[in-house]
């Protein structure tokens, strides 16, 4: 088989907010069906990296993006429809957001917006996505309740269900578990491991253990630059390529 093209390719990606450089010259591949962990201290550019991928970064005032980002063969900054791109990329932001509509409608929103009308199809999707987000059991009897009235952790899982509802090829998780208890987090992590067989996952996390448990490979960002990317065991092991990686990873434990 010919060497496979990476699922996502960041090539010489630079992001500026006005004069501030948020990401500098990032070149990074994400392989098909892997979980890529992205670690790094606050302000290192992790969130910006994800937000270039569904082009929500450019909604921020003063943001400028140079370089290319590809999903499969498509240069996403040359695609005609941003909405189509965003359907291909699921995005879970760190702050939980329930839309001001029923729990059911929250999950059915994206499919409906892309034209799905069939009730049975929608019912199935809603159940699947809520189950994958480990929320189904808690809300199955009150799907008509408002999504905004759920607790923070539940809204976070609702956000995950919504991100899965448009059947993305790439799933970006940005600190998805900060509001979720450890047991439920574990259940979602199990789901992510299963989902990996069909989709590619980018996982931004401050929980070093989580990256270790889930990520096939990991990338370490520091002050807007990519320090190192490699197999997770390498980054978290005794001998990462870069001394700063070792200090960061072990400083966190210390």
């Amino acid at each position: 088989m010919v060497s496979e093209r990476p699922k996502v390719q960041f090539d010489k990606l630079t992001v500026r907010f006005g004069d501030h450089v948020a990401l500098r010259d990032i070149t990074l591949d994400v392989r098909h069906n892997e979980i890529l962990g992205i670690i790094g201290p606050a302000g290192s550019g992790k969130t910006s990296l994800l937000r270039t991928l569904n082009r929500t970064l450019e909604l921020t005032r003063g943001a400028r993006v140079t370089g290319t980002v590809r999903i499969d063969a498509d240069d996403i900054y040359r695609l005609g429809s941003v909405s189509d791109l965003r359907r291909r990329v699921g995005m879970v932001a760190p702050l939980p957001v329930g839309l001001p509509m029923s729990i059911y409608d929250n999950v059915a929103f994206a499919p409906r917006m892309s034209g799905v009308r069939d009730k049975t199809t929608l019912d199935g999707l809603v159940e699947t996505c809520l189950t994958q987000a480990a929320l189904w059991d808690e809300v199955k009897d009150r799907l008509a309740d408002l999504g905004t009235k759920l607790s923070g952790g539940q809204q976070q899982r609702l956000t995950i269900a919504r991100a899965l509802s448009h059947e993305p090829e790439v799933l970006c998780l940005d600190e998805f578990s900060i509001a979720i208890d450890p047991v439920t987090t574990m259940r979602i992590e199990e789901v992510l491991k299963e989902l990996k067989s069909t989709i590619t996952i980018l996982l931004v996390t401050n929980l070093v253990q989580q990256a270790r448990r889930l990520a096939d490979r990991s990338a370490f960002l520091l002050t807007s630059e990519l320090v190192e990317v490699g197999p997770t065991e390498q980054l978290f092991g005794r001998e990462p390529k870069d001394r700063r990686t070792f200090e960061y990873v072990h400083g966190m434990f210390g």
Partner: protein
Amino acid sequence: MGVFQSSPEAQRRHFMQSVAKSVFACMTALLVLPVIAIVGLLFVRGGSALSFEFLFSAPLQGMTAGGIWPAIVGTVWLVGVSLAVAAPIGVLAAVYLNEYAGDSWLTRIIHLAIVNLAGVPSIVHALFGVGAFVLFFSLGTSILSASLTLAIMTLPVIIASTKEALSAVPMSFREACWNVGATRWQTIRHVVLPNSVAGILTGVILQVSRAAGETAPILFTGAAFFLPHLPQSVNDQCMALSMHLFTLSTQVPNVPPQITYGTALVLLLVVLSVNTTSIIIRSRVRRRRRW
């Protein structure tokens, strides 16, 4: 000194707190006083004029007798037509400005223009209406000219209140919609508008009462001193409550005071009932808040 005895410093603080509270309360009372006085005076002087007869018959004997029906009908025409023009334009423009337009020098100029338009005195609007609608567009003195003048006067406030209602919908909702691939229009249609429509309506309704009360903008553009017949189309002139009140009190000799006060009372009741409607809508929606 016992544990629960207050120190002189604490007593002084308590005293100052009481003074501050009384001052604020007095100012609030001062605010309510003129409203009560106006409504009370109108009821005492004009209440006796209120009757079925007064509301539903035309003025008689050089406006010194009869009722105000043509003025009521005229006001409904003027407010209705002006709103039919101003509400859609204002609301749609506000949606554009709030949801689509970025922050550029052009949009800043537009914002500046809207703020300034809102500050233009109504008599200037009136003169503009004469120049633009009556003369330039040859609409003549008509309901249409007067309504368009009123529309231009209410437009900036409708835009401002609509924008405020739209920006009360948290940005995070929009971002959540965009994240799942909804277009801007889908986001506006399914999330932003349903959650701001009450606020938008409130703003528009408040402009109804403002348009009903204004005299200057309709003075030269379409309102008549006296018309025995009701208007048949927007090309006719019409009487109006505010204008009729002005006429009765300054232009016509020997009008029985209860007719003047009665007219003022009706105008006030119309405005108050419209405002009450908007308050009811707002409080209903507050109770049904979705986040």
